[in-house]
């Protein structure tokens, strides 16, 4: 067991997987010699050689397209898109190819690839380094979508993703890379070394894709969150004193509906939180599911707290980011309704 940052945990997952399975290859922009702009692949090329971990041209459709071809051959590519905001050139390859190869060929060919991408804001990245495109993946049948909130989960989920027989979009909240950020940007950053979920086993372990985790037990209101927003929701619950139950989805697709429904039926109130924009966001799906499955248990309307329906601004980052104050107000609104 070691104390790891989320970067180290992600790296460890790839390291463990590459050591166990010679078919695992890792590539992307700047990931080879340098080890990635966030250093997630640091040391992997030196350890496994440059045919198993290498730099690519700046071509996301090329990265994902070649990964699909490699997967058809029998390799297990785990590729990095430098920022989630850069994935759009690869979207055709992801949605019409990776997601459908098993289906359209009736399993004659399959596509076990992992596409890692740093997601979300909080680093003054502006419009092109802050996006949260998870709903663009959950809307595509055939993809799996995972968003970890801490180093322990990140490693176990990434190993599961690499071992998964289907394509997995692995969104790493970049603001969580170095610590459990709760939205209080004015305070010093807490390090993962001071957090129990920074305790990460050195070896192989998996966390099943499709299982949520309750991070805070409560009976007043259910908060459904993932990624950075888990920590924001926990802070909001502490600061308001509202007895919130905070669910960390961990994987959006497949979704652990059972955990959501159990909690929402118990509390009768529900707040959905994500950093992505509101309209047609994944929160819309969550709110609809809670409504479908828990309608007669609900005491108040489901409340959504999300990024505004605007591009992610630069200077006004902290007025855009759904921080603990906004989540706290939403908790109060759900309790009053």
């Amino acid at each position: 067991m070691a104390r790891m940052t989320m970067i180290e945990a992600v790296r460890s997952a790839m390291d463990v997987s590459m050591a166990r399975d010679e078919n695992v290859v890792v590539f992307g922009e700047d990931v080879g010699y340098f080890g990635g702009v966030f250093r997630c692949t640091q040391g992997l090329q030196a350890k496994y050689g440059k045919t198993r971990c290498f730099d690519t041209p700046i071509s996301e459709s090329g990265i994902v397209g070649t990964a699909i071809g490699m997967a058809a051959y029998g390799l297990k590519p785990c590729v990095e898109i430098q920022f989630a905001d850069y994935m759009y050139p690869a979207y055709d390859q992801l949605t019409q190819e990776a997601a459908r190869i098993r289906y359209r060929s009736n399993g004659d060919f399959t596509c076990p690839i992992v596409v890692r991408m740093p997601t979300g804001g909080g680093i003054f990245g502006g419009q092109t380094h802050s996006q949260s495109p998870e709903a663009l993946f959950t809307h595509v049948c055939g993809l799996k979508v995972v968003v970890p909130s801490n180093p322990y989960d990140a490693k176990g989920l990434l190993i599961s993703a690499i071992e998964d027989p289907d394509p997995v979009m692995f969104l790493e909240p970049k603001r969580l890379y170095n610590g459990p950020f709760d939205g209080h940007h004015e305070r010093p950053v807490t390090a993962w070394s001071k957090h129990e979920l920074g305790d990460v086993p050195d070896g192989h372990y998996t966390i099943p894709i499709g299982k949520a985790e309750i991070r805070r037990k409560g009976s007043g209101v259910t908060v459904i969150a993932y990624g950075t927003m888990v920590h924001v929701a926990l802070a909001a619950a502490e600061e308001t004193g509202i007895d919130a139950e905070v669910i960390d989805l961990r994987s959006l697709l497949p979704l652990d509906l059972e955990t959501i429904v159990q909690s929402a039926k118990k509390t009768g109130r529900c707040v959905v939180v994500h950093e992505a924009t509101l309209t047609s966001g994944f929160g819309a799906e969550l709110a609809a599911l809670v409504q479908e499955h828990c309608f007669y248990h609900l005491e108040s309307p489901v409340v959504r707290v999300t990024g505004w329906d605007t591009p992610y601004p630069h200077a006004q980052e902290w007025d855009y980011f759904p921080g603990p104050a906004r989540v706290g107000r939403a908790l109060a609104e759900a309790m009053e309704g």
Partner: protein
Amino acid sequence: MDEFSRLSLHVPEPAVRPGDLPDFSNVKIPKAGSVPRPGVDVDPEEIRDLAYSIIRVLNRDGEAVGPWAGFLSDEELLTGLRHMMLLRAFDARMLMAQRQGKTSFYMQHLGEEAVSCAFRKALRKGDMNFPTYRQAGLLIADDYPMVEMMNQIFSNELDPCHGRQLPVMYTSKEHGFFTISGNLATQYVQAVGWAMASAIKNDTRIAAGWIGDGSTAESDFHSALVFASTYKAPVILNIVNNQWAISTFQGIARGGSGTFAARGLGFGIPALRVDGNDYLAVYAVARWAAERARLNLGPTLIEYVTYRVGAHSTSDDPSAYRPKTESEAWPLGDPVLRLKKHLILRGAWSEERHAQAEAEIMDEVIQAQKEAERHGTLHAGGRPSVRDIFEGVYAEMPPHIRRQRQKAGY
């Protein structure tokens, strides 16, 4: 007055339109046998002119001439002729089946049979093609059962794709045929990835990507060439230039570039242009490229100059955008007739045997069709289950899809 006049936009137009006389004077046809055959380890810089010429083996008299001739025996050529005739008969029957409502859609190869049939013979078992929808010759020439192809086209109870995919979007890993997407160009870069994987694993197998003239304009074409060039992937990158992208003439995708093959030059990829209606030339060039790939010398780009005689698909009507007689004026002739003529000249074939073979092949196709139809066609007889809608989206069905399947009553 300013020295610059107002700007105007250039929109290319084909030389002729319906009602005009066909005109292929812009297609420069070099003499058969006139293009040299370099060693496979040649520096791409030294053969830049091959991207602007056309490698041809069969001359107008049906003789095989020049340095690209002499790679195929009588027996191999007779097999090649049979494959092309089979594909042509198959197409004719499936077009008719579509008109009879037995399937929703079909795409034929008329005029382009040599490209995929001859190419397949330059590959080995285990190599992988990433085809478009007009390379069924790859399957025919690898003896993939016609009945299976028809089961797929009819979406019947034995359809290998369980009714999920458009007609002619075949898949066969066993026969080195990657599942056809129906999207354009996506498979080109996937072929490069497959080839990179083979090199990563120190394997001996190679890959081939396929694309049409029109879809070379897609960004995936560029991505494929960059990756193939950077990693020297053991891949053959094929461009089938059949002059038409549905109704759009090849000049719209080609732009100011002299040829499609010339696109490879900027990437340092050897680029060859070949007479796509010449079975011997297609085979010889494909074999050259395959040898390069197997020797770890990297990718080769090949442009097959051919002509789409038929409509783009059963949903298309070419008389609306090109002269009806254009195919007859195509200067590279018909691939079946040209090989037939060559084989007769070699003394290996005759008009009588050809007529007899045509009848036998048609009978073979009809027998296969009868067998396939016993298992259903799109709107009649055996068909895939509604369950098949929900199966196979993932290896393991997730709960939300199971709930939806139950809701649908299955």
